[in-house]
């Protein structure tokens, strides 16, 4: 069994050395902001509004533009971060086209203020239902909460606003919840006092693949390990969870995604972060993530049946071109050559295509051999 994880252990040792060399702290991100600080920042916003009104000037809110690539910079050790000179959007209170957004932001600020003041928590859905007519849609609330987080320079979790649970986690992991409940993973909530002897964490792109591994008792077969999925594009909680595991356990984190542009992008979000959350980037990224599979070169290497392959669509080409222009694309030459191979062949494959080789090929042969022989990039 020790041979099974010899390469993984070597990687872990190398990563640990790297951490010490770069003086990464165990909580390499901005820690939670104190509640009083959050309240003060909100009060400053309100005071500015009142001061504007006293001068009979229209109050405005200044929000950083979180959707433009030109507003982010790339740091190899931290991932995507928001630029200090990012472009801004001004939300005016006297303009018919923006006054509704102004009101929505203030309504959210009030909800957050009350939550922080009472040290209670609510989901974004709860905020939406405070005034569905004002907000119009859940998407609107989601965006505004992130805008407020960026505006106040406060992590989202410090606003006491939670996302609805999306990700799953399983494996050799126990943790203690705030109320003292001990959770043995076979939940997504706030977590402390993480205990685990896992050798590695495996991030899985799709829920279907996660369930497949569960059904094939992968965690038992390759005990001790932790597998998790964000069920596609990960939400902040899922990213936070993985980051927490890395910060606490310092064990290798591998990604198992489809050999297609979408899968690669999801893996990049875990590794480097996203444009919209770049303002919190350092606390959500895991730059040490390794790509375990499925590689485009694995298709030929393992003899995946041709009819299991899917031709590229126009959207795939567009996505791939966009990925290749990202600031981090040149950091991983091995990833880049795999992407070039995919582009040349103009076809993609899902993890499920490995079943065309043999049933349970994924869990009985592919993954164990990849881990045994250090076949990751």
């Amino acid at each position, binding site marked *: 069994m020790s041979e099974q994880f010899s390469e993984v252990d070597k990687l872990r040792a190398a990563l640990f050395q790297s951490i010490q060399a770069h003086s990464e702290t165990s909580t390499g991100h901005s820690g939670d902001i104190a509640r009083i600080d959050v309240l003060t920042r909100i009060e400053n916003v309100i005071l500015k509004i009142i001061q504007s009104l006293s001068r009979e000037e229209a109050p405005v809110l200044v929000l950083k533009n979180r959707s433009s690539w030109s507003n982010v910079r790339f740091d190899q050790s931290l991932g995507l971060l928001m630029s200090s000179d990012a472009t801004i959007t001004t939300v005016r*209170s006297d303009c018919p086209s923006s006054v509704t957004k102004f*009101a929505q932001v203030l309504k959210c600020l009030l909800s957050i203020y009350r939550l922080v003041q009472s040290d209670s928590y609510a989901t974004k859905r709860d905020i939406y239902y405070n005034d569905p007519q004002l907000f119009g849609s859940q998407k609107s609330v989601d965006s505004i909460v992130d805008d407020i987080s960026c505006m106040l320079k406060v992590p989202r979790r410090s606003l006491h606003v939670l996302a609805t649970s999306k990700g799953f986690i399983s494996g050799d992991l126990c943790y203690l919840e705030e109320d003292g409940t001990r959770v043995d993973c076979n939940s997504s909530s706030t977590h402390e006092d993480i205990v685990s002897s896992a050798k590695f964490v495996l991030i899985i792109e799709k829920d279907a693949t996660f369930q497949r591994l569960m059904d094939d008792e992968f965690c038992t077969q390759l005990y001790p390990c932790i597998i998790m999925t964000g069920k596609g594009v990960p939400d902040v909680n899922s990213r936070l969870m993985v980051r927490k595991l890395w910060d606490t356990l310092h064990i290798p984190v591998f990604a198992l995604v489809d050999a297609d542009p979408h899968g690669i992008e999801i893996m990049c979000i875990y590794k480097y972060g996203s444009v919209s959350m770049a303002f919190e980037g350092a606390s959500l990224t895991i730059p040490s993530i390794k790509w375990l599979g499925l590689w485009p070169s694995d298709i030929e290497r393992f003899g995946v049946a041709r009819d299991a392959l899917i031709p590229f669509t126009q959207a795939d080409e567009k996505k791939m071109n966009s990925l290749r222009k990202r600031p981090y694309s040149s950091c991983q030459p091995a990833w880049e050559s795999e992407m070039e191979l995919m582009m040349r062949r103009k076809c993609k494959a899902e993890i499920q295509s490995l079943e065309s080789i043999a049933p349970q090929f994924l869990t009985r042969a592919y993954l164990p051999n990849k881990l045994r022989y250090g076949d990751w990039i």
Partner: protein
Amino acid sequence: MTSKLQQVIRLLMVLTRNDYTESKRSSARPDGRGGLLVLRVHSMQAVRRPTYTVAAAGPWCFRMSEEHVQNEATARLSSSIYFCDCPCEEDLQMFSNIFGPLHFVCSFQDDQDKQETEAATATFLQRLSLVNAKVTIVFKVRDKEHSHSQVFRAKNRLSLMDHAISMDSTIFSQTPFTMACLPTCTRMHPVLGERVALLLPSEVMEAGLCGDPSGVPLKRGEGATQLSFLHSLADSPAWAELGQARVRHAESQSGQGSVSCEVEFSVDDEDDTQPQGRRVEPEHTVQQTVMLFLLFEYRDPFHSQLSDVIGTVQIRSEETLERCLDKVLWYNDDKVRSALQSLLKSALRGFLKRNKSQERLQSAMSVILSSVKSIVSSSSSVDFRTACLTTMKVQSSYDLSFPLHQKLQRVINGRFVSRSRCTSEKASETIMSEWNSHEEPENGLPSKRTHEEEEEEEETPSCSKRQCSEFTAGDSYAFESNIWETLDNQMQWSQGSQRELVDMGLAESSTPSLSNTELKKQQVDREWLQEIENLSEWD
């Protein structure tokens, strides 16, 4: 108003229309300008039978010999009209001096000698001038004691359905609902609607509706059926969608020198019912009036080929349409209402947009104020609360609401600054229909024609506040000669400028090899003269 006069004018319009149609086919379209004189002379004799003379001059009307006019009149008008000579040749002469040779003269005796006939005639002629805005209409009344005249002429025009529609807002200024205390918008902004094909009820078809329209406005005669369809529009629930509350109608009343409409509607000001402090309406509200023109066109391809028959038939057809208009409208109830709704929505687009913006601002305002106040009230930070209260100059957070509300309201109101004048941008065109490609349907009665870009230059960017007509109650020859002098002077300006242009044209043709300097000078002169001609239109 005497029906005989209406018949004669209708005859003139029919003949002119036929001529226009012919010239349109041959691409020789007439200018459309000129004059129309309606002279009413009360007899000096014991039997008081007024005499009417209708005369037309200018390129707008059909050129006919007197004998031909007589023949046409005899053939197409009712036998109850007694033709005679014009009793005031000098008036005809003065008219001709100003507007050019007379193309049409018809004098006849009328048997109605009532004071109100004169007023009704004036109203009719004013209405006629609305849809024949290029023609200067002079109505002159003479009796043994005095005489007086009225001139109906539009300065601003819009071309629609081969008619020049007057766009002078001042003649519409007096309505029963005019609030004299409020400033009125002086511009008329045409918004064109869609063309609606109407079906004719069977009894109207049987009554015989054919030929081409003359362009004489339809008028309900005395005792005619009320236009119940138009009245019913006041109760339409669609007004709510247009942001109008409590629409009511009244019978039109002809104000002095103003145009009477068939039906007039008013809307109550919604803001009066709102609680205090909710209004965002700026301080200086500008009253707006929407004038709705329904233009009817009917064609019967079968009968339109029979030109010999058509004159009499056309006149009869229009009379039939007058009588049956209400029935036709009710028969096409849904279609007409839908078209009106759509048109009014376009016309009120700016108003509705402004209303929506104000609603949005008001709604957001309450959320903003309540959020701010709640945070201040619930804060445990003394410094923060003190700073807020001091800034707003209040003692406690309880007193914060009113000044916050006031300040924010003032900030928002500052975004809506009303203007007493409109901008100089062109009025927006709305729905473009398939008029040009659309075949006239059988029995179809399109109510409005959408206008392409042609002849838009006739729309002027601003509208004079001056009354465009009216010299009333003058009673001396000296005064009335002023009418002709005034008209003469105005016409001489334009004729003079035209003469000079012609002269220059001749000069140009006789000296073909003018130098560049000369050419440039002539160009400048032409432009200067054009400016003067334009000025003369404006007085």
